[in-house]
């Protein structure tokens, strides 16, 4: 039987915290609580990376999610008719379909985790500075095309979204409200 090391303990702890906050996202009616629960779920994932000695990815995850989830919060508050959750509004719908999708998704991910050949486990992680260097080389080599494609796609979406949000000059040439 494998000995539970401190590292395993922390990985499991942060993992459970991530799941706990993830559940909290759907257990509250307040959009703000929901968004920030998702934020802290993602932060716990970042902490898991740190516990797994993947420093750069961990810090990056913790940094990115704080801003991104906060921006998501304002959209959730804007678009829900009861953002504070004070009116006891029913937030769930299509329950059976959701449960089915959840179970299938979980099985699919568990299948990937179990049936992928992950290769040999590295006994000691390379030093953090080396990892950052290796990640940089990876991003500018093999993975460059993927990242550039994703980047350009996001940029296109941002420009399109801004263009849609602008009041149309043709429809309203004199900027009248």
């Amino acid at each position, binding site marked *: 039987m494998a000995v539970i090391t401190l590292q395993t303990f922390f990985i499991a702890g942060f993992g459970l915290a991530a799941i706990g906050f993830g559940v909290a996202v759907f257990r509250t009616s307040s959009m703000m609580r929901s968004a920030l629960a998702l934020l802290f779920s993602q932060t716990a994932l970042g902490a898991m990376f740190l516990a797994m000695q993947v420093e750069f990815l961990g810090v990056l995850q913790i*940094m990115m999610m704080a801003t991104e989830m906060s921006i998501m*919060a304002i959209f959730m508050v804007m678009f829900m008719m009861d953002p504070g959750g004070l009116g006891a509004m029913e937030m769930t719908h299509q329950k059976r379909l959701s449960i089915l999708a959840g179970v299938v998704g979980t099985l699919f991910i568990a299948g990937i985790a179990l049936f992928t050949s992950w290769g040999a486990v590295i006994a000691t992680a390379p030093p953090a500075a080396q990892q950052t260097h290796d990640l940089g080389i990876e991003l500018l080599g093999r993975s460059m095309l993927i990242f550039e494609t994703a980047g350009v796609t996001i940029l296109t979406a941002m420009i399109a979204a801004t263009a849609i949000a602008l009041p149309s000059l043709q429809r309203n040439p004199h900027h009248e409200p």
Partner: protein
Amino acid sequence: MTTLLIISALLVGAYLVAVLEAWLANGRFRLTGPLWATVALLGRESIVPRTPDRLFFETAPVLLLVAAVLAAAVLPLSPSLIIANMATGALFINAALAYVLVALLMAGWGPDGAYALIGGWRFLGQVIAYSMLVVMPITAVAMRAESLLTTDIVLSQSGVWNIVYQPLGFVLFFVASLAVAFLPPFDLPTAGGELAGGVEAEYTGSRLAVFRLGRMVLIVSLAAATTVFYLGGWLGPVLPPWAWSAVKILAVSAAMLLIGHTLPRVRETQLLAWCWKLGIPLALLNIFIVGVLVLIWL
């Protein structure tokens, strides 16, 4: 021991910043002023608004303080005086500062008050304006040091300080750090005279004391970051390294407070427009210039 020393240094720094701020605000230099202000705050009742989101209301001041302390944890006061010399230090400080936003959103939403709410969401807009101006100048600093270790960043300036090597980056980072600490002219989330304190408006007593302490520590942390990234950190003749750090950090803090004191408050739309149309292109130009300098000169 190091942790204890640095946290004490942060508290002393925060106290001195509070003295400076009071001096600038009411023109009287009183070394004991913040002490009495704290005693008064702790002695007062800390009122909870009628229908708060209690969790956020209680967490916000503490989270602000924790974020500010964590930001300082990766900054060296001397070659050995650093809490955590992380291989990703220059990135970690951004991660810590990102939670200032979370704290302010919580402080805005928590009390269920109109002024606080507007203040909180304003800061979200402010983050969208300044965040690139924090990250991109740090990128250029790390490029020169060829490392994200903050101690390496200081050592990379042993010949020429970054304020001379990349002055554009310094100006951008300095302006952005005023915005991070929501100091005037970027005090949009608190906005005295307009939002009646904004995110601070509903806090009283001990909770307000923690909130104010968090903000003071944040100012010191940002001044320490400016010192490490642009002013050669602990480097300097005659005086011991920690003394140089202390002198520089206090000077930067004073400059942060003084500059804000002389400028009118910026409007949210103006801030966003300036940051995106002027700030980000300048930050990219700074990265380009530093890239060329690193290649041809080192």
